């Protein structure tokens, strides 16, 4: 039984290899980029616009609103990173309805990569927002004693991000596989639909958590000046 699309290797040359995770990721990237390009090729700034443009505008402004609700003041700055996280995970899940497709998010390597990106992005945004000292000081808040715990928290939440997404995606694919073996008709369809829902929820959770981490990193120092 294959747990991860990483195991499906098309080509390998020593350390370098081309597995299903990377290939499907490329396909998704292609679909997303070409789709966006096609739709945004003829954008109208008028009041009248195409349905596709409307859809994209709703998606983009919706993501921006969510980021703002989390507490980030300038959503356009984080839209590229957080929006892409959501769109990638969501598209990867939605494409699960295509037969033969393996969601790249079902690979722990992919989720770990995404979690690592968040792990790197959070301090970057934090330092950009408060400066190096300000950001580093947040690790010794409220007291110096908390430093190790803060560091552990940082690492563990990254791990949790990766494992949560992977577990959910993998379990979805796994359940469908098992159900197909037990009850090949009707029931797998229901479970696939449920899998789509869980995928969307996970995409939302992943990007919202990333937003929350970034928000926490960029505004930790905020209450201090008043004190």
């Amino acid at each position, binding site marked *: 039984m294959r*747990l*991860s699309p*990483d195991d499906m290797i098309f080509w390998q040359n020593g*350390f*370098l*290899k081309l*597995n299903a*995770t*990377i290939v499907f*990721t*490329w396909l*998704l*990237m292609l679909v*997303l*980029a070409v789709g*966006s*390009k096609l739709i*945004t090729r003829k*954008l*109208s*700034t*008028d*009041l009248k*616009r195409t349905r596709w*443009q409307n859809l*994209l*505008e709703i998606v*983009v*402004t919706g993501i921006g609103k969510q980021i703002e609700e989390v507490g980030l003041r300038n959503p*356009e700055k984080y*839209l*590229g*990173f957080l*929006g*892409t996280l959501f*769109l*990638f995970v969501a598209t990867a899940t939605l494409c699960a309805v295509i037969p033969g497709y393996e969601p*790249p998010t079902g*690979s*722990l*390597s*992919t989720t*770990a*990569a*995404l979690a*690592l*990106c968040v792990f790197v992005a959070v301090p970057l945004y934090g330092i950009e927002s408060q400066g190096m000292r300000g950001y580093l000081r947040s690790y010794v808040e409220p007291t110096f004693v908390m430093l190790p715990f803060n560091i552990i928290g940082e690492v563990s939440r990254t791990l949790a991000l990766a494992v949560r997404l*992977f577990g959910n995606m993998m379990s979805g694919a796994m359940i469908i596989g098992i159900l197909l073996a037990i009850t090949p008709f009707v029931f797998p369809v229901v479970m696939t639909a449920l899998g789509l829902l869980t995928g969307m929820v996970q995409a939302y959770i992943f990007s919202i958590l990333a937003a929350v981490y970034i928000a926490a990193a960029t505004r930790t120092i905020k209450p201090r000046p008043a004190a």
Partner: protein
Amino acid sequence: MLIDWFTVGAQALNFLILVWLMKRFLYKPILHAIDEREKRIALALADADAKKGEALKERDEFRHRNRAFDEQRAALLSQAMIDAKAERQRLIEEARKAADASGTKRQEALTRDAHNLNQSIIRRTQQEVFAIARKALTDLASASLEERLRGVFTRRLREMDGVAKERLAEALKTSSSPALLRSAFELPAEQRAALQAALNETFSAQIDVRFETAPEVISGIELTTNGQKVAWSIADYLASLEKAVAELVMEQGKSEPSHEIEAEPKSVVNLR
């Protein structure tokens, strides 16, 4: 092993590339389009606001002008009414004056006509009276009217009372010019001689007399000297006739043409 570190690295790189692609192809154009639209809407709204303000201003101005126009119109109307009233008064006055003038003119014309008629009637009457008298006298006593007139005049002279006679005699004597004897008709030579004789006899003196014919002398014969006058007159008769004729004319003036006049001609030739 669930984690393949090469795949992790590749996926991280892939993800970063995807972030760049999305930024490049999705977020930027879409956000740009949204911003542009918002700008356009804001511009349109600002434009609409400006236009609204302008429209309000224009409306106020229009109302103001309308009010001014109404006031002006009302003023003009009232002025026109006053003028029309004045003009009406003037026209009525003019018409009244014209009516008065024409009435006066008509009255004058009537009076003149009446006067003319009177004159002609008087002349005609005189002629008729004399003609009738002449004929009657000729028929009745084979005496001419001239003769009778001379007779009447002579008798008048003779029957004058003392005071009048003395005054007349005095006037005749003191007069430097000859006494004037005027008659309505040409007196024949024997009549003149008779009259001369009668005068001489009455005043017991040679009286210088100058004979003259004057148709306007109604009395027939009159003697004038130095402010004194002796005459035989049918003036009363004529005055009565004149009155009757005047009444007739007045009746005609009142557009009642058929009115018989009952003139009672005084056929009596009276002496004054």
